[in-house]
């Protein structure tokens, strides 16, 4: 209030200010005598700012650990690269090119503890040698005779074996092979993608899933697709311009890298065209199709999607679902190559469709109905050979744990002994670290029965 009066007096006393073009309010105050104008001084903080938050509090624990990216600070790996003439029972890293391909395909999954090491490591076991003999060496033979279903308990290394099979086949054929990998087949039926009905093909299309999958296979097969010439002319629109690609001139890479119609919400026939092109080239280039979590497709054949009359849509009515079933069935029409299917134990164990299809000699309840059992689909999938995983041997476990020890994942220390009453504290017990390590190996091998995930959890995630 006092301030206001001073200002108003000032304005009245200085008539010249009123005639000036500047705003009256912006006229300077007259300083009182004996007072100095105060200056704004910012306080200087001598303390160094410490970043405390990692912004991970909103994430679940496992996800938060992954986001911390411990692999960047992990010690350097001095392990040999995987070759086609590998020796059994040794730990390898993937060659750089193959590792990047596997990464782009989604081969290394969440919660596989890959962040413990600077690079993803892999142990060649009896399963690796078996898959090499039964599958990789037969990729030049007929596609429909080379179909395997990898079965085993949780954490035994089924997804890792898929990666190994892909890596070995890429090494064997010198990267001249088409790898169509689907890292999680459950996305087709779990209702996470938009869907449209294509009246022309009378099939449902899922643009979001198809676009993502095309992106992955394009990154993984870039070199191979650049060699593959188109066999038919094709045209599509890009940025409102029509693009025409001619046969024997342009390549499949040109087609896939420019065509964004896979992700559009309008019906199209491009997926069919792509499969036809791969089919044409499969005479010369073998096709490896690997599908992880395949039991999610078969055991949940009635999907979460509903038709307009509120009936669940069958997995075979989807374009991608039909492709996967045809591939597993062998009726897709690829000449050379093979298909590897893998099980996931996270889904309902009481559903028996894939089990009945792969093990027809086993007894099953004849009165089972949907959704537990889909007889039609089980009949369609007959002819797939089972590949049952075996757990690690004691030597393989020791070799794996030696690497963990070298990398600092496994800490070898003396056992904790509770002091007895009146025991002297100065008593020093010497422990032989070699024998202590052997003790840990035997202990974890016995408790987990050679399951690598169980071993890792027992060693690294428990205290």
């Amino acid at each position: 209030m006092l301030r206001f009066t001073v200002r108003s007096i000032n304005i009245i006393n200085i008539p010249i200010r009123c005639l000036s073009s500047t705003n009256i309010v912006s006229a300077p105050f007259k300083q009182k005598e004996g007072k100095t104008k105060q200056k704004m001084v910012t306080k200087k903080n001598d303390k160094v700012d410490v970043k405390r938050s990692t912004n991970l509090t909103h994430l679940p624990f496992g996800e938060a650990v992954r986001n911390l990216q411990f692999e960047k600070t992990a010690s350097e790996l001095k392990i040999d690269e995987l070759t086609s003439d590998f020796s059994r029972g040794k730990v390898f890293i993937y060659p750089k090119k193959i590792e990047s391909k596997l990464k782009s395909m989604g081969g290394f999954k969440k919660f596989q503890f890959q962040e413990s090491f600077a690079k993803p490591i892999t142990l060649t076991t009896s399963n690796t040698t078996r898959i090499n003999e039964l599958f990789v060496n037969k990729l030049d033979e007929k596609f429909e005779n080379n179909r395997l279903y990898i079965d085993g308990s949780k954490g035994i290394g089924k997804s890792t074996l898929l990666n190994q099979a892909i890596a070995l086949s890429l090494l064997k054929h010198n990267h001249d092979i088409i790898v169509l990998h689907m890292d999680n087949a459950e996305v087709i039926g779990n209702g996470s993608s938009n869907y449209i009905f294509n009246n022309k093909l009378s099939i449902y299309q899922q643009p979001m899933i198809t676009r993502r999958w095309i992106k992955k296979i394009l990154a993984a097969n870039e070199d191979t697709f650049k060699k593959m010439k188109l066999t038919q002319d094709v045209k599509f629109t890009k940025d409102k311009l029509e693009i025409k690609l001619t046969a024997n001139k342009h390549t499949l890479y040109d087609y896939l890298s420019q065509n964004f119609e896979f992700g559009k919400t309008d019906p199209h026939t491009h997926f069919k065209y792509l499969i036809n092109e791969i089919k044409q080239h499969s005479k010369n280039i073998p096709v490896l199709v690997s599908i992880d979590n395949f039991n999610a497709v078969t055991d949940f054949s009635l999907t979460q999607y509903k038709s307009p009359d509120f009936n669940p849509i069958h997995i075979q009515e989807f374009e991608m679902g039909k492709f996967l079933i045809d591939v597993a069935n062998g009726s897709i029409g690829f000449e050379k190559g093979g298909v590897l299917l893998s099980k996931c134990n996270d889904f309902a164990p009481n559903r028996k469709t894939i089990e009945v299809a792969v093990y027809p000699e086993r007894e099953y309840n004849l009165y089972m109905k949907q959704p537990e059992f889909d007889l039609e689909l089980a009949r369609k999938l007959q002819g797939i050979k089972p590949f049952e995983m075996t757990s690690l041997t004691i030597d393989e476990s020791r070799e794996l744990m030696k690497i963990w020890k070298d990398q600092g994942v496994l800490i070898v220390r003396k056992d904790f002994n509770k002091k007895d009453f009146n025991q002297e504290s100065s008593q020093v017990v010497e422990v032989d670290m070699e024998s202590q390590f052997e003790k840990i190996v035997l202990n974890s091998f016995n408790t987990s029965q050679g399951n690598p995930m169980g071993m890792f959890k027992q060693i690294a995630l428990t205290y």
Partner: protein
Amino acid sequence: MGVVVFGKSIKHNFSVKVGLAKTIFGIGYDTAERLMAKVKIYPQCKMNQLTEPQIMDLNREISQLLVEGHLKQKINNDIKLKKDIGSIAGMRHYYGFPVRGQRTCTNASTARRLNKVNRYRL
């Protein structure tokens, strides 16, 4: 940020099924699923992922249902009819007592709160 469907603002990060069921009077989870199937909205779709044509289709489908004010009016009318014809249920509504044989010595607090002739204010 909200997405406006049928004149109601629904939070952007709600799934469509939950958003419709929680916001619009007269639509439950089952009806919401049926609506989504008709309009071809995928099951895990969030409110902010809806396109403009899909929202218009949803509005059109919801407007054909008996929801919100019309449904509330119907419930009020039904209670009033019961009272007018002199039925026991109508009288119980009038007195604010339980209608379906529940005890009144104790409890019956829900009935006292809800059972009126004009159940919903319009």
